[in-house]
């Protein structure tokens, strides 16, 4: 840690860890309900566990984004944060918002609009928190006078995320129109501005971890951002196909969303070649695993598995089946969960006691268990989804009868999800294992960065 105020990141990460753990509890509950019968049918039905599962995901990932930004901006701008007090008030407000939202969901207090279930008061608090966050970050950068490209991309991503949340606050008379604007938030988040955030963290990590040249990395970062938006903005239409829009959105959505993986291929090549060409300049190899892992898993989960069902003539059959769940899990995990875990792994050795830079054995176990678990979950959803498409959509077997015939895949889902949860449990344990330590270590001094370790 080079700046005292970077300590706020620790508390954001700690909250993210707790919420991540809680997310999995509700995920496992939901999976158990797929298998059924459900002893909690009238107390805690599927719709409730599922809302909590997805909302906790969004909240913890955003908490991680904010924490990681508070960690990264002082490093990039070489200054203390503008206001740590503001950062803590923001975190407090955010946690209160998140906890009350989840309690509300237990009683079905919510808007019932997928992924945007937050009640209006909560939505307003979310906007306020985002504004506080942006203000704090912008003031930090302004005061320092040093504004890097990496930081700029991250900041625009965060600001874009705030702006794109606004359509979710409005009321629409027409259900079709409300669906369209719902995707302005959800799709343009995950396939637009959040990819800028991911790109920003990725560039930061690569600059720190590898010996790669900042100018070169930042040039390619721009190219990636350009590719994301050429494809991603018009690619929104891959969610418009069957909801009651003019015909022309089908070819447009198909064509542009099929281009989306180009940016993801770019991102993976970017990460790989930075390390390949310039070697390692930092001992934290565990953080390197998470960083490269995130770029590659995004390519698999978002790029490949997104492409698999993005064309209208395929989507017509797969839309609304477990094939979507297959892609959603792999993509979200690879792109956003893993990049947050990478930032945490990178920052952790300098925020806690008794920790080797290289990462612990537990840390490696956690990495591989999570990867294997998530890969297995993706396969379980895929096999279940493909079975569902053939039986229910193509052969016309009833929904309930189809679900009975694909039970074995739900067993596999629960088994692999358990593996995944053990991996996450180890990560959380590793995080809290040692006390936090907020000492300032100057650049170049041990243990932050011993001499260059050449790996080629």
């Amino acid at each position, binding site marked *: 840690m080079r700046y005292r105020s970077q300590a706020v990141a620790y508390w954001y990460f700690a909250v993210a860890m707790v919420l991540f753990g809680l997310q999995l509890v509700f995920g496992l509950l939901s999976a158990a309900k797929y298998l059924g019968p*459900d002893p909690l049918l*009238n107390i805690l039905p599927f719709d409730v566990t*599922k809302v909590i599962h997805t909302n906790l995901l969004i909240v913890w990932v955003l908490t991680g984004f904010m924490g990681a930004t508070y960690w990264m901006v002082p490093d990039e701008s070489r200054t203390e944060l503008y206001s740590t007090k503001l950062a803590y008030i923001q975190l407090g407000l955010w946690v209160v918002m998140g906890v009350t939202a989840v309690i509300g969901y237990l009683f079905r207090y919510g808007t019932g609009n997928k992924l945007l279930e937050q009640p209006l008061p909560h939505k307003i608090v979310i906007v306020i928190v985002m504004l506080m966050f942006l203000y704090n970050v912008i003031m930090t950068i302004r005061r320092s006078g040093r504004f890097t490209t990496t930081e700029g991309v991250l900041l625009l991503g965060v600001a874009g995320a705030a702006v794109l949340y606004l359509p979710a606050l409005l009321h629409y008379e027409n259900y079709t129109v409300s669906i369209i604007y719902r995707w302005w938030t959800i799709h343009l988040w995950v396939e637009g501005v959040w990819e800028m955030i991911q790109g920003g963290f990725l560039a930061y990590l690569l600059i720190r971890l590898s010996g790669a040249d900042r*100018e070169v990395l930042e040039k390619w970062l721009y190219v990636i951002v350009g590719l994301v*938006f050429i494809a991603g903005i018009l690619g929104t239409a891959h969610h418009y196909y069957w*909801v*009651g829009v003019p015909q022309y959105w089908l070819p447009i959505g198909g064509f542009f969303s099929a281009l989306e993986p180009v940016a993801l291929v770019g991102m993976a090549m970017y990460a790989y070649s930075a390390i390949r060409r310039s070697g390692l300049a930092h001992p934290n190899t565990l953080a390197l695993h998470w960083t490269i892992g995130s770029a590659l898993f995004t390519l698999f989960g978002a790029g490949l598995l997104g492409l698999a069902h993005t064309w209208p003539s395929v989507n017509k059959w797969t839309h609304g089946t477990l094939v979507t769940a297959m892609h959603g899990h792999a993509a979200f995990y690879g792109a956003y969960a893993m990049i947050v875990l990478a930032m945490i792994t990178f920052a952790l050795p300098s925020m806690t006691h008794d920790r080797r830079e290289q990462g612990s054995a537990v840390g490696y176990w956690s990495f591989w268990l999570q990867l294997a678990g998530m890969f297995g979950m993706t396969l379980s959803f895929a096999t279940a989804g493909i079975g569902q498409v053939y039986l229910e959509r193509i052969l016309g077997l009833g929904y*309930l*009868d189809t679900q009975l015939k694909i039970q074995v895949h739900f067993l596999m889902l629960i088994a692999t999800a358990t593996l995944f949860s053990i991996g996450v449990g180890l990560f959380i344990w590793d995080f809290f294992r040692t006390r936090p330590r907020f000492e300032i270590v100057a650049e170049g001094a041990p243990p932050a960065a011993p001499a260059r370790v050449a790996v080629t």
Partner: protein
Amino acid sequence: MNKRQARLFAIASTGLATVAFLGLTLHSHTKFDELTNAQNNTPQVQSGRDVWHKYNCVNCHTLFGEGAYYAPDLTKITQLRGEQYLKAYMRDPSAFYDEQRHRRLMPKQNLSEREITDLIAFLDWVSKVDNQGWPPRPILVTGASIPGTDFGPAQGTSSGTASTLPPGARPVTGTENPIALGAAAFRSVAPACNACHSTAPGVNMAGPSLAGVAARAEELIGSPEYKGQAKDVKSYLIESIRTPSAYVVPGTMYSADGTSFMPNTYEHDLSAEQIDQLAEYLSTLK
């Protein structure tokens, strides 16, 4: 390419895509009214939409294929199920399905009668939105477009008793809603009706699809082609079961010389009550 050019590329491509996207969005707004029959998006439909949201239906079901995958898609449900069926079902889903049998059940939602009516109006509006013909084939809740595919291996050989009911059907105790009893009988009498009839629109097998049979019957009774005795929909359906040849649906694959290919054994093999329940169920298929 240098860094400045790369930045220019990022800004220009984002700008272009944004302009194109906003332009098309504006254009789409001039088409939504027509595509979604906005004139029918009445206050009742809107309050039905609010009911849909209030009870969080979208986190189990999909509508337009969007939502959760724990329960069937409901985009065209009002075209597969009649209003009376849906009302009875919403009041108590457990009268229609058995959790032990297919491991899943919709919890009772405790809607008021008013909410149920509004909800059905909303779902009906949804079913008529011009959404590029999706789904390409009807998505059924239970049963099958192709007979027999919904039977488990143990159930394939015989039919009739509770333990050999198809996976979707509830074991019948005799105290349920007559519509639910009729729906169960449709799959369990011998020979099973669903061996020849689908309730999915357009799926004609050995017998014609019974989707919308009630509406068709209503039209038919008043017309000169009809030679049977029935005066209303229910009696038409009872007649169709008891004496299939009283009136035959046109089509050489359905009858020859005025004699229907549908078995004429039900009159003796089923009780009057069972036939009544079957008619009760079929008359919800509007």
